[in-house]
């Protein structure tokens, strides 16, 4: 394919976008770009780290599977981007140009204003005012569009928002300044108006940046999970995306794959992990004729499954409907900035109107009274108030993101800050949700046996083998040299080591793990057969995390769909009360009961069965390994194995809301000082400019303290 004639080459170039959720640093970018660039037929590969994507220009002859394969070889799973899940347009980009224009105009007008404040008079002052108007008015019209459009939209529907007082203030101030300029007046307010727009736009950009960034991360995870299945038809096997699956199709499900639709086993026998659906930790054996559901993970041998329901008929879709109903109460939440603006706008307009009436009554002329009333509007414009919430949330979300916790939007932190009760799912949330080998069994392995086990396991995609590779790799074991490696699906891996047969296989009936636990047998010639037990273990530092939660006054308890015995074991180890055997609607009920008792409830869960509960709780958090339903419904997604992410998100949210409240006090405190001066007619453009920038800088400085907010408490 590399020898394609140059003439046709330009016609056969295709562009493919791959989503690579695992990229997070410079060396990942370098590896991905080099691995793709090294393929024959690839013209260029360019990573977009923000969107966790790579754009590849390549010959049409080079297929997408080759590209995906090249990335898998260096340890980066990827998926071609699904077109209908293309990332939503960035919220930041349309704001950057107005921000730049406001910044440019603000600086230049301020330069002219400084000369006026230093005593420029007569024709020089008039010239400077005219220049300010020439720069300022187009800039205000351009940069102010963001606010005018939003205010107009609100007014058309008979509502009001923060942008209404801003727009009125900006328009009146500009009109007054223009009038003054044309009539050789002493004061024009172009500098203050532009500064106001600059600070407000900066706040908006920060807010949008946070939403964009969080969404990019979550989108990458969601797109990765775009499910599908290998469908057997007329002897050929094709990959079919989940939405195109129809009842009657036969899916071939390899071990380690998740089912994309409900169905019935037509051939083969295996064990399925249903933890995403029901929370059960033990794998259930299935054989021909058994019903299986979308979301279940094949743990053993490949099976063929006939699709019985797809799309809106599946168990999954049923859960989605419950979630929609459960989530309505949350969308009714009003963000703190909006609550503030509801009080703010009427207060400001009343003050300005009172000032106008007051000065009229006191005998000042209509023109003089109007001038002072407008000064009140300008000085009260919510400069620092507009920055108070977004700056604090952006800084805190950045601190959390560095710790591997993604925040979906700002309101999530506001809701999280008020949590006083936490319900945790067991399988996949308190525990890792995947089998890990018994550390004692690994300790007991002789060094050579461990090397053979690692080498054997690395040849299999079986979930137990992969867990073994990870655990042994973490212990620094290196793989032994094997020959004639052969994997028999459902049986194990066989090979030769120093001429003798070795095997990592399913245990014989007699030695198989009891009560549902899983095991592998390591068989090396000349050594006794060793059994390695696998179980789903508690996350590291689970107890430390629960202790931190209790220290914050949040009482955690377990809400699991697993059998009572398994739940009780974990409850004992973590000293929590527990409710087991809960169906999705039981979980929903438990949350509503607590909410009815006046608690603010956090739900932490990962499975499909947690979906309705995640949507109904005041705030929710899911691990990055969760089902796509879980990740979609949760406000926070944490990527680390550590459970400390949950209390960390809580503590950071609380710190953020403390800072937001301080910011409000600072911003309103400034108004308390400045408004009486403005109403007395004492405020000049110079005072307004100094007051506005000082209060904004104080608010920004106060918010920057949150950069350290995601640290653990000092012990």
């Amino acid at each position: 394919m590399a020898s394609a004639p140059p003439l046709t080459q330009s016609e056969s170039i295709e562009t493919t976008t791959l989503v690579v959720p695992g990229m997070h640093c410079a060396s990942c970018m370098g590896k991905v770009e080099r691995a793709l660039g090294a393929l024959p037929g690839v013209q260029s590969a360019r990573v977009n780290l923000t969107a966790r994507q790579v754009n590849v220009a390549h010959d049409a002859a080079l297929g997408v599977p080759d590209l995906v394969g090249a990335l898998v070889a260096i340890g980066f799973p990827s998926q071609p981007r699904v077109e209908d899940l293309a990332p939503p347009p960035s919220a930041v980009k349309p704001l950057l140009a107005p921000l730049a224009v406001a910044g440019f105009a603000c600086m230049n007008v301020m330069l002219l204003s400084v000369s006026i404040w230093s005593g420029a008079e007569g024709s020089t002052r008039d010239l400077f005012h005219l220049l300010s108007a020439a720069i300022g008015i187009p800039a205000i019209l351009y940069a102010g569009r963001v606010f005018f459009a939003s205010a107009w939209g609100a007014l058309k529907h008979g509502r009001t928002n923060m942008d209404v007082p801003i727009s009125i203030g900006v328009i009146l101030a500009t009109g007054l300044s223009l009038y003054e300029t044309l009539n050789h007046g002493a004061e024009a307010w172009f500098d203050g108006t532009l500064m106001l727009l600059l600070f407000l736009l900066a706040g908006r950009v920060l807010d949008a940046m946070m939403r964009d960034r969080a969404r990019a991360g979550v989108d990458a995870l969601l797109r990765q999970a775009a499910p599908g299945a290998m469908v057997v038809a007329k002897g050929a096997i094709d990959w079919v995306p989940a939405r195109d699956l129809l009842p009657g199709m036969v899916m071939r499900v390899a071990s380690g794959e998740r089912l994309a639709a409900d169905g019935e086993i037509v051939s083969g026998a295996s064990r399925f992990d249903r933890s995403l659906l029901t929370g059960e930790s033990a794998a259930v054996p299935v054989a021909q004729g058994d019903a299986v559901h979308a979301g279940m993970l094949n743990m053993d041998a490949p099976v063929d499954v006939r699709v019985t329901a797809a799309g809106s008929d599946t168990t999954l879709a049923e859960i989605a409907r419950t979630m929609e109903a459960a989530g309505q109460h949350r969308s009714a939440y009003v963000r703190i900035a909006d609550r503030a603006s509801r009080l703010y706008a009427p207060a400001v307009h009343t003050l300005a109107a009172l000032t106008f009436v007051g000065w009229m009554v006191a005998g000042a002329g209509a023109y003089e009274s109007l001038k002072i009333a407008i000064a009140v509007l300008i000085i009260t414009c919510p400069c620092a108030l507009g920055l108070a919430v977004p700056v604090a949330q952006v800084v805190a979300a950045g601190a959390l993101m560095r710790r591997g916790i993604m925040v979906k939007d700002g309101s999530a932190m506001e809701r999280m800050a008020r949590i006083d009760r936490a319900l945790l799912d067991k399988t996949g949330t308190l525990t890792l949700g995947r089998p890990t080998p018994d550390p004692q069994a690994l300790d007991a392995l002789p060094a050579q046996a461990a090397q053979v086990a690692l080498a054997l396991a690395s040849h299999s995609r079986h979930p137990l083998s992969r867990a073994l590779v990870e655990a042994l790799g973490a212990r620094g074991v290196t793989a032994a040299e094997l020959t004639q490696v052969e994997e028999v699906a459902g049986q194990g891996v066989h090979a030769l080591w120093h001429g003798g047969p070795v095997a990592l296989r399913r245990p014989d009936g007699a030695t198989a793990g009891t009560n549902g636990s899983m095991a592998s047998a390591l068989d090396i010639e000349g050594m006794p057969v060793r059994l390695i037990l696998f179980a789903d273990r508690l996350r590291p530092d689970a107890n430390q995390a629960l202790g931190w939660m209790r220290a914050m006054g949040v009482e955690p308890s377990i809400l699991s769909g697993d059998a009572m015995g398994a739940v009780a074991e974990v409850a004992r180890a973590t000293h929590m009360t527990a409710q087991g055997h809960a169906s999705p609607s039981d979980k929903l009920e438990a949350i509503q009961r607590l909410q009815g008792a006046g608690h603010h409830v956090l739900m932490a869960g990962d499975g499909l069965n947690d979906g309705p509960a995640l949507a109904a709780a005041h705030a929710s958090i899911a691990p990055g390994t969760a089902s796509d339903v879980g990740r979609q419904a949760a406000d926070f997604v944490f990527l680390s194995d550590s459970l400390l992410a949950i209390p960390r998100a809580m503590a950071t949210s609380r710190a953020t809301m403390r800072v937001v409240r301080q910011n409000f006090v600072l911003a309103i405190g400034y108004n308390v000082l400045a408004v009486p001066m403005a109403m007395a007619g004492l405020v000049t453009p110079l005072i307004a400019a100094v007051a506005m920038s000082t209060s904004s800088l104080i608010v920004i400085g106060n918010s920057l303290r949150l950069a350290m907010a995601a640290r653990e408490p000092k012990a």
Partner: protein
Amino acid sequence: MTGLAFLIPVALLMGLTGLAAFFWSLRNGQFEDLDGAAARILIDDEELPVETKGERG
């Protein structure tokens, strides 16, 4: 005062040049991937030639 007649246009021109440069970079896609741009500087130079081979081709 004659200084002003000279200095003010110069100041404005410099400001406008900066603004134009910003608009150019915005259109040129330089704000598409801010995280990537920040990380890209850390990629070692000697590793790069493979990746850029086709960009001008």
